[in-house]
């Protein structure tokens, strides 16, 4: 069996500084520390669980980004992936989700036959959850979104439990299928020391746009229907507010007023 895992190196939005945005409204990625997108790590784990159950399974990780995104491939290999490549080209710059999904769909096509595609539900730098279903459409695959657990898998089909707002749903799909994995899924296993040593000197393949034979009009800014019109810094409307020192008298007075005003 052949499994593709899509992973993204993302700015760590939990540690955002003041220079995080370029003046044109795009993300200043150079100014931010990066991490393996958390839900993509969970997607990798789900793929590795399939590999554990199915003999002769290969897990290939694909990431799109700047050359330094090779760290993602290295990390994934150390955790159990077999191989992978970085899709990197200045001609992808400015891609919205539609152009990104097109580039990634072409990259998957360039990687040969496959049975399963796993990716995170969404990346923490955009939270759109669009790229997975868009790739499924482009590859003509059914999609299973919001996956939280692998129930069973065979050469023919996969059974997945989905996490919805108010409960769970278990579905069965014939392969091939694309699965997007949510944060409720199990955490990824740690890198193995012996794999770290084994792969330390193995280079990471980088493919460019030409390698995936795209229609160039569908890449980058030109292939992106959405445009950022403007970006506003949020200035919250200032209210005339009352500052209270947290003394017992003040707090007591405040609660008394809230009761008298029938607010509580």
């Amino acid at each position, binding site marked *: 069996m052949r499994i593709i895992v899509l992973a993204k190196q993302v700015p760590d939005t939990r540690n955002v500084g003041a220079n995080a945005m370029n003046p044109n409204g795009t993300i200043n990625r150079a100014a931010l520390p990066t991490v393996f997108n958390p839900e993509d790590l969970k997607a990798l784990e789900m793929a590795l669980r399939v590999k554990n159950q199915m003999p002769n399974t290969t897990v290939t990780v694909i990431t799109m980004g700047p050359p330094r995104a090779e760290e993602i491939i290295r990390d994934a290999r150390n955790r159990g992936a077999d191989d992978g490549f970085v899709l990197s080209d200045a001609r992808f710059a400015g891609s919205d989700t*539609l152009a990104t*999904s097109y580039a990634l769909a072409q990259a998957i096509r360039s990687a040969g036959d496959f049975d399963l595609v796993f990716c995170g539900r969404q990346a923490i730098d955009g939270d759109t959850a*669009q790229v997975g279903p868009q790739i499924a459409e482009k590859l003509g695959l059914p999609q299973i979104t919001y996956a939280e657990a692998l129930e069973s898998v065979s050469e023919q089909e996969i059974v997945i439990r989905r996490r919805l707002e108010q409960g769970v*749903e278990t579905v069965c799909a014939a392969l091939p299928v694309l699965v997007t994995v949510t944060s409720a899924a199990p955490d990824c296993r740690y890198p193995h020391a012996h794999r770290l040593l084994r792969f330390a000197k193995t280079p990471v393949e980088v493919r460019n746009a030409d390698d995936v034979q795209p229609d160039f009009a569908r890449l980058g800014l030109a292939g992106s229907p*959405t445009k950022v019109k403007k970006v*506003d810094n949020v200035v919250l409307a200032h209210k005339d507010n009352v500052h209270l020192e947290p003394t017992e008298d003040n707090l007591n007075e405040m609660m008394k007023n809230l009761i008298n005003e029938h*607010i509580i």
Partner: protein
Amino acid sequence: MNNVLVYCELSEQNRIADISLELCTKGRQLATQLQGRLQAVVLGHKVEGLEKQLYLYGVDEVFMADDERLAPYRTLPHFELLSAVIKEQHPDIVLFGATSVGRDMSPRIASYLRCGLTADCTTLEIGSHTDAKTKQTYENILLQMRPAFGGNIVATIVSPETRPQMATVREGVMKKEVLDATYKGSLTRIATDGRLDKADKAVRIISREIKEQSINIKPASIIVAGGYGMGSKENFQLLHQLADAIGGEVGATRAAIDAGFTESERQIGQTGVTVRPKLYIACGISGAIQHTAGMEESGKIISINTDPNAPINSIADITIVGDAVAIVPQLIACYNNNLK
């Protein structure tokens, strides 16, 4: 065509979901501005009669398919029919809920139609846009505002060249308002014969366990909300004690939920619920735009924070600089004293 189309979702009770009625309310405003019609698509089983509910919200035309293979929701059967309606009707704008259903369906449609899709919009308006490079001006297009990246900015996104312009909106962000109890719309039935056979086979549902929603903070008139600054799950219990005392509900920021302090159903903000209580007590909340977007319309806002410069203080009516963990128990005591 200047039409606005809403993809309607059904609740577990097979009613039109609140999110879809909220989208119809917004869609009605947009369609009126564009001098177009408001269209709605309802796909399900035993949905006869639901169109009448939609007319109340100003829907001009309901497209409805009734087939047992359409319920519960599955991607491909719905995609098959919805994509065909959109291709045939050429709406200018299509709106989806930012729910597990809307977020599953809308990107697949956007990919198929090769059009733009903006996730989790908090404001939708009709306006104009001039491209900075080509100087071309586009009139009457959809301006889609969403808080983005890190929380201190709001991006306005446009898709000037492609149609339809598509957006998702979280539940509770837009208001739900009946337009006119006598509004006259029309119903167009969608035939399903033979069209779902292939889509039906791809994915089958083995089991479903959907609970009635046990926590719903949206209707609460008093909300005591906590942020990451509360420090622990134990400290969050103090908020429950205060909320119980004064008859409120407990809400939380995404950071507090990510830290495991409380249930995700309590999340307030762009990726949670939007609330408009009479009283909002923010405890240890700094006030990132993703959070304030979901509570800024509250009647009275009290902020308790150790940081006098916390952004939330600028929208608060009363700011108390101090440790919420110490102050909340005092508030409970003060409340009890004043009741005597």
